[in-house]
């Protein structure tokens, strides 16, 4: 059994991930469907845009939860990795690949569960069927998003291990989630220049998830009909570039991993 499969199985059977990545996010969908939808203009297109926006932003949060949970487990294995890269056939590329395969598998599964929850709740509430317009595209975006989240989280964790010390882990581990909230809500409520949204990987993911669910191009302000349209090839290209840079950085940092005691991370 390969390392990638073992990691994938460990991630898929992690109850904490299922709780924070699915159950907790389902709670937000309940609010979206039944509490915040009060002032929505009637009509299928408005309801579809609203549902797609909720799907995009909450799936973004769910994927962030996944990445930090998996990446922080590296702190328990610093000696194993430092030894493994020297004295076994394990290489940073192989290890990073195993993490990304696991993250991508979980990201696809999470996205499909999100689709099921969103479709069920919003369809029931609006009385019309709300299904993703392009499921294969959504799965592709989930794979890319899982790879990005894992690349980011792994890089951050390795910066802490190699340079800052484990005592800073608590500060760093909330960083991706906070950025997800900031950028995720920005595209829901604010009009910012399109180039900012292209540069922001969170908004690339959000836009692509929106487009895959709704079947219509994402706009600068999600769910509106008047703000400028975003180009999905640019979003895909920008996100792929982010993935390449972060995974490359994580691989280099892994090759220089420092053996540290998990006790260094204790706050008290």
């Amino acid at each position, binding site marked *: 059994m390969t*390392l990638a499969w*073992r990691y994938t199985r460990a991630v898929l059977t992690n109850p904490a991930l299922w709780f924070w990545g699915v159950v907790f996010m389902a709670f937000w969908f309940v609010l979206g469907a039944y509490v915040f939808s009060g002032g929505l203009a009637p009509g299928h297109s408005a309801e579809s845009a609203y549902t797609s926006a909720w799907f995009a932003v909450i799936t973004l949060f769910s994927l962030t939860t996944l990445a930090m949970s998996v990446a922080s487990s590296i702190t*328990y*294995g610093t000696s194993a990795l430092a030894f493994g890269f*020297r004295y*076994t*056939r394990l290489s940073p590329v192989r290890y990073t690949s195993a993490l990304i395969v696991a993250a991508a598998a979980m990201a696809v599964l999470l996205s499909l569960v999100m689709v099921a929850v969103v479709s069920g709740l919003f369809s029931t509430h609006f009385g019309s069927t709300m299904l993703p317009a392009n499921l294969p595209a959504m799965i592709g975006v989930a794979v890319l998003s899982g790879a990005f989240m894992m690349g980011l989280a792994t890089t951050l964790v390795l910066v802490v291990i190699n340079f800052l010390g484990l005592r800073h882990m608590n500060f760093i581990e909330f960083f991706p989630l906070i950025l997800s909230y900031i950028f995720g809500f920005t595209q829901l409520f604010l009009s910012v220049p399109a180039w900012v949204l292209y540069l922001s990987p969170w908004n690339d993911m959000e836009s692509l998830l929106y487009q895959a669910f709704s079947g219509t191009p994402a706009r600068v302000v999600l769910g509106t009909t008047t703000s400028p349209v975003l180009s999905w090839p640019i979003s895909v290209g920008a996100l792929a570039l982010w993935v390449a840079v972060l995974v490359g950085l994580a691989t280099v940092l892994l090759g220089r991993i420092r053996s540290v005691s998990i006790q260094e991370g204790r706050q008290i």
Partner: protein
Amino acid sequence: MSTGPDSTLSVRDLTVRYPGSDTDAVVAASLELGREKIAIVGPNGSGKTTLLKAALGLAPVSGGSVHVLGHDVRTIRRQLGVGTNLEEVYRLMTVPVGGLISIWADLTGRSDEELRRWIDDFGLKGVLERPLFRLSTGQSKLVGDLLAMAFSPRLLLLDEPFDNVDFGRRRRYIDLLNRSSASVALSTHELDLLLSLPEWGLYFMFEGQLIGRFRAGDIDRLHVSRGHQPDALAGFHSSIGEVSVTLDHGDLPLKGVSNLGYLLDRIA
């Protein structure tokens, strides 16, 4: 710098200081290991484990050099043939011991058949379904000892391999070690153990300093004395001043010393 073709471990003027510490854990230690076996004996806290960790790439080298199988430990990558019993090296992920064995067989590209037979022979079959951290201290130590021996190592670095291991299994493991063709560097604080390893080389370690080399079979003839002795086999500077190691005469015979921790106090 290159080392000889038979060199398995070459340590030259090695100094190790952990971040945040104001003292060196290992001070200018030098040792050359070919195709042979040595024991490093010293009290708790003398730097034995740190010396082995430095050779494994798990401790920061602040001065001098370490070469393993002819390669600088700082840059060595994917070099098979080094085994260790340090438990932290086996914490790549949380799996039962059976899964851990499969992972290491995969990472070394070698069969795990012999290791599984040893697990059986040592009466450890029950541990296969449990992760290392759920085992008793002795069981965990033995599993580490056997993992170290598995997968055809050329160099074995063993840290206190007999801690909490019962007498019968100690005997059996010593037999395995003596039959092994691997070079061995074994750390221990038990002088009595040396009686079972008469042909081995012997070093002492006090206050971070490596002193030797001697023959383990001469342990009954070695003495320590305060001050410089003209016919000393070796000497070192300690917190109580100069200390000499001599053969057949001196202030204190090592034979019968039950606690190395008080050795320097007794000759002070």
